[in-house]
């Protein structure tokens, strides 16, 4: 134990030291070269450590996964794994659920986050309000899942309900709901947890965007006689549009990659599976590398168009 602690401390402290030593060595090695040679070689030597790590841990695995996705158990290559993607009912169900996540998480977080940003902008306790909403973004999904399982806790009718939501429901005279088991509510419940966690990001970004709107614009709108709602609809909202698109793409990517919430809260049972959980199951429980690679490739294919939109708007924002 203590040896491992020592190693961790050594790496934590040593990493910057080793890196600076590397740079020092690079500069020494470059000294005999001509000015032009130095200018050419230096950046790549400085970038050697990051490129090595990223190449080894991201680029190579990415390519290897694509290759593996064509591998069938037994070693041959073929399209079997993709046939599984196309024909399997569980993949279809997971895709539908990912679709629900995509729409629900994006729309829900966007509306709630923008609402908090706009409303907080108008009050004196803005900092406190934003802190409350951003806090869940700092904690782990596992903790959030525990927090919300406690909210959704279900006990059979007749027994005292200790889950907050069912206490409210029964106090209103209705039957308690098994939120996470009932297939009419469970996906919405999981997505709700996702929204609870992502609203902070939206609020922070939208808030910065709101503060960047020139005050004269708002004043001009007011002078023209616009009330608060028309002011928001016709003056503020158009200014926020580029930010809304960028935030939506981030939320969409989060929705497509959803894993933790589902894993901890339902483990994909009761028709709540999403692609990432299916992939984890194939990888870990079934050890079917080909299938799980194909599922991972499918995830990348789904994310690509969203990334394209994001990059396009990002470029526009810079230009």
């Amino acid at each position: 134990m203590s040896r491992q602690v020592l190693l961790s401390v050594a790496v934590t402290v040593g990493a910057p030291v080793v890196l600076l030593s590397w740079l020092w060595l690079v500069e020494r090695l470059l000294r005999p070269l001509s000015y032009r040679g130095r200018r050419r070689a230096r950046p790549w030597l400085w970038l050697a450590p990051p490129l090595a790590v990223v190449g080894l841990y991201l680029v190579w695995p990415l390519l290897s996964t694509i290759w593996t996705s064509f591998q069938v158990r037994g070693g041959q290559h073929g399209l079997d794994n993709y046939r599984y993607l196309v024909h399997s009912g569980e993949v279809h169900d997971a895709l539908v659920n990912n679709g629900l996540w995509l729409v629900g998480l994006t729309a829900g977080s966007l509306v709630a986050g923008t609402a908090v940003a706009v409303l907080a902008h108008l009050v004196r306790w803005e900092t406190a309000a934003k802190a409350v909403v951003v806090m869940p973004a700092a904690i782990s999904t596992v903790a959030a899942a525990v927090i919300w399982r406690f909210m959704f806790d279900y006990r059979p009718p007749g027994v005292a309900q200790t889950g907050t939501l069912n206490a409210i429901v029964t106090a209103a005279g209705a039957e308690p709901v098994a939120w996470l088991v009932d297939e009419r509510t469970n996906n919405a419940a999981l997505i709700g947890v996702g929204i609870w966690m992502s609203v902070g990001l939206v609020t922070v970004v939208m808030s910065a965007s709101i503060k960047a709107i020139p005050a004269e614009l708002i004043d001009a709108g007011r002078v023209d006689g616009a009330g608060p709602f028309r002011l928001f609809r016709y003056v503020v909202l158009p200014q926020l549009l580029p930010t809304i698109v960028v935030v939506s793409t981030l939320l969409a990517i989060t929705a497509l990659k959803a894993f933790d919430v589902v894993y901890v809260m339902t483990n994909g049972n009761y028709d709540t599976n999403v692609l990432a959980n299916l992939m984890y199951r194939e990888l870990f429980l079934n050890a079917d590398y080909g299938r799980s690679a194909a599922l991972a490739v499918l995830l990348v294919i789904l994310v690509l168009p969203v990334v394209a939109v994001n990059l396009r708007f990002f470029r526009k924002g810079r230009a």
Partner: protein
Amino acid sequence: MLRPTKRPVTERRTVRPTGRTARSLAFVHAPLVLLCLLWLTPTAAVFVSSFRTAADSFATGWWEGVRPPLRFTEQNYVEVLSHGGLGRAFMNSLLITLPSVSVTVSIGTVAGFALARMRFRGSGVTLAVLLGLTVVPLQVILVPLLRIYNDLAVTGTRPGLWLVHAGVGIPFVTYLLHNFFRELPRELFEAAEIDGADHLRSFVHVALPTAAPAVASAVIFQFLWVWNDLLLALIFVGGNRETAPLTVMVSGLVNNITGQGWHLLTAAAFVSIVCPLAVFFALQRYFVKGLLAGSVK
């Protein structure tokens, strides 16, 4: 374009949204208070419950716990930390997180500097590739890495996980620091060059001291990301109780002790968020900056 105004402009101006008029109370303060309560209640519920006895938690809802007479106990925390193995998991989380953060942020800072302040062919492409890699679904790297790790028998070891986190984190940190270094005025570096500083010296003596806030954002962001990570921990050290971090332990507890174990589970959850919450409240400014940098790419 002048339209006749029905009321004098001054009167309309008095209805400022910040004023405590009935309208602003109804449309601004009330919904905001409601939203904040909605966001706060779940965490508050778990917090209260983590200090209630097993019998109380089983018999009544958490809201009864804040009704006097108060009967709070720290027994749940004692139990999860000693018998539940959460003390070790906490240590593991630290031992996974700190080296990962150090390696990632050190390398990313150097890369960000090189990409921002050195002019060379391929810098644009390199940056674009790194930016593209920040959104790659993590699932796509798991299969080959797990296979290699199994072959090399490094699955379940911490150094193996440090490197995975470094690989995943470097693109983002590089990007964040690149954006910062790019904005620094050129004069800052020219002055140093006149004094005879080479690239290494201007990096260490000119760039780094000014970069403290950006590095802080990167550190906090990376810290929270690694500390909160479940997927990578689950796959690369999850099978090993000796090295499993809090997220893995707590997610294991969820499936084992719900129903009658809320008093323990809520305490465990709180142990796992103590560090993130402390970081969040102490360094909120930098955290928000990191969020902004990550999203308004």
